[in-house]
């Protein structure tokens, strides 16, 4: 049966099985390919999106569980203040190598900084260790998160 979902502020109707993971609705049904497939089992974080602001692994999230919640993906995260700041920090710190995991990294980092504008190293470890980067950009991800956090606390 057709389901309604709200992605990046826009409502969509999709006709897929209830248990279809959100990831495939985004990528294959709606053509939003910025969210990546890495493992299919919530082990790598490449598919991280926000559901009502919470970082969520789209590969194991059934579409029927979304209900009225707002889904935000990498395609729209730059429209948020924190997301834009994170993206800029990513470019300034020249974080990216192959780039395939970075949508998920940026979504995880944005969720972290939205929730906790001044994360400690240990906060960063906790929030980011679910996201695998096979190229090994972790040191720069950490540096970019710290850069993005500068000034965030003050602005509230």
């Amino acid at each position, binding site marked *: 049966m057709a389901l309604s979902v709200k992605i990046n502020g826009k409502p969509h109707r999709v006709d897929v*099985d209830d248990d279809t993971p959100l990831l495939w609705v985004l990528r294959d049904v709606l053509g939003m390919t910025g969210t990546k497939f890495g493992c299919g089992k919530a082990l790598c974080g490449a598919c991280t999106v926000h559901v009502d602001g919470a970082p969520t692994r789209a590969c194991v999230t059934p579409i029927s569980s979304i209900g009225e919640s707002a889904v935000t993906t990498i395609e729209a995260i730059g429209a948020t203040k924190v997301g834009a700041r994170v993206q800029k920090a990513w470019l300034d710190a020249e974080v990216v190598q192959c780039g395939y995991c970075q949508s998920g990294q940026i979504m995880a980092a944005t969720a972290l900084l939205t929730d906790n504008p001044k994360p400690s190293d240990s906060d960063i470890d906790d929030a980011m260790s679910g996201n695998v980067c096979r190229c090994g950009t972790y040191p720069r991800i950490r540096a970019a998160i710290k850069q993005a956090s500068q000034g965030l606390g003050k602005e509230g």
Partner: protein
Amino acid sequence: MTMHDRSIASRRRFLAGAAASGGLLLGLSLPMSGARANGEAFAPNAFIRIGADGRVVLIMPYVEMGQGIYTSVAMLMAEELEVDLAQVQLEHAPPNEKLYGNPLLAGVQATGGSTSIRASWKALREAAAAARTMLVTAAAERWKVDPATCRAEAGKIVHASGRSVAYGEIAADAARQPVPTSIALKSPGTFKLIGTRAKRLDTPGKVDGSVVYGIDMRLPGMKIATLAQSPVFGGTVKSVKDSAARAVKGVRQIVRLDDAVAVVADHMGAARKGLEALEIEWDDGPHAKLSTQAVFDELKQATAGPGVVAQKIGSGVDALSGAVTKVEATYQVPFLAHAALEPMNCTVHVRKDGCEVWVGTQVVARAQAAAAKVTGLPLDKVVVHNHLIGGGFGRRLEVDGVTRAVQIARQVDGPVKVVWTREEDIQHDMYRPAWLDRMTAGLDADGRPVVWHHRFAGSSVIARWLPPGFNNGLDPDSIDGATQLAYGFPNLQVEYKRVEPPGIPTAFWRSVGPSHTVFVVESFIDELAAAAKQDPVAYRRALLDKSPRAKAVLDLASAKAGWGQSLPKGTGRGVALQSVFGSYMAMVADVEVAADGSVQVRRVVCAVDCGIVVNPDTIEAQIQGGSVFGITAALYGEITVKDGRVEQANFDTYQMLRMNEVPAIEVHIVSSPESPGGIGEPATSCVMPAVANAIFAATGKRLRRLPVDPAVLKAPA
């Protein structure tokens, strides 16, 4: 028009007459005379195109998979052509080994082996400098002035009078100029771009989700397929019950091949659900009982007798009789999967009269040939669209995925994207070979090594990948890092024995041969230092009188790391040194070993001499990333086979290093006037022995096999 079509079309235009096209086309390996009379000789190595519209295009023979090559190769061209980096547009080179073969990889059109900068360094700068010279001459002719009074600057030719013309406006005239017979390259002192931290060109689209990797390909009417391949290497499909799979909403078709079954669906969710609903009975074939233990047993047996001598110095192993002390050890390293984060995928549309392939590949011409072979079509009917790759590490030097996708697509009406699940990606990888090494050394009364004997056995990837490269039982990759050591041993013998594991496909993996040899060599030299009761850095240093570049990186890394300082209990500091991929590297690693035997790498200090630096930020990034890749392998990497099946399947059983485990990584670059060396791979091989040697320093336990086994390091209760 696609990238591929554009570059083909532009070459055709050139062949039809450069003047008519209004463009200037230049190539690598420029013929130095008669080029204009012979269009073929000029056109074939086409890498640079300047359009009448002012577009400066680099037709890029190497693929971007994270190593930063789109930026650093573009920097080489922009430097000599005198254009801003931002002005350079890149197109993937189409499949054509004659035009785009990699001279450092026997002419195969391949991105790998840390060769892209090395292969481009002279040739691409010469091509760009020749283009610049022709543009200058054309402008001088138009203005009827002495070319010596004109210069190239920021995409324009500027006359001493101040008048100027943009490259696009003069391109047609430049195409009519003779190719210069001698080309003056800029001297390094005048570089504006080379050596700078130029920003990467490929990153903006990678932070907003807009970049299109192969897996992101979308075409009208495209279906998505996923597959199950025989879980046992070499097995076949006996029977398939697919009624439940066909009943899954969105499943369109089941494709049965000899050794695999694919589910074709509207989306990956349905394809995966359909795959799970399939009941497949397999014929396990001849490898049903295969195990990695059997592979290692065979390697052990193979190394009991002599191998093919790869290098011999002095009396070789015969010199052992004169040694005061003999040290012996056996090492082994496991099979490894690539586990690039973008799972294997390939999109194919097979029509009666042609085939189109969308894929990210390190070997685009081989991808084309693979599709042609499966379809029976001639090469010119197969179009391959190359893409940015979400991690290569050698996996995309193979075209098994293209072959498989075309086999499936042949049975599908319309385009189909075949996507491997992570489990299929790991269990049907082509693996970094397992190796076993027997080391023997003889020391004199002062503990100095007077003889070094290294004998090892394992798969030769080259023998399959590039058969002419395997000669008289040897290939250059397998022995790389084991021969031509920086250390001066008066007697040395290195022997290799090719042993192919039955059924288990092997392939290149980041750092290739040295990913194994450097671990063994640098661990064993550490053993010798310990046997001689000498400091590991001083022991190595005493052997480097004929290798000043190696000595310099060792000195720099040990100084920056604070070598010799005392460390807290449970921690240790280890060193490793290598000279591979044309670069010299030393690393010092600090580790902490917990009571339960778990290892945390706390800090890595790296000194590198990779010749002239093109982009220092890229070098640092590759060393950081390569270190993480190598630490991952040292601590976790192992593919094991039981009953013919790979036992690991996803990131829970084939673990990756994560944010909380990553050490501080410092990179110190030695200033050098030498030609650039490779940088994508050296850190991966260097860090593994540095970590193992640090563990020895912390615990007194010598690890002679990877990955690290915490049970061995566990403190006694």
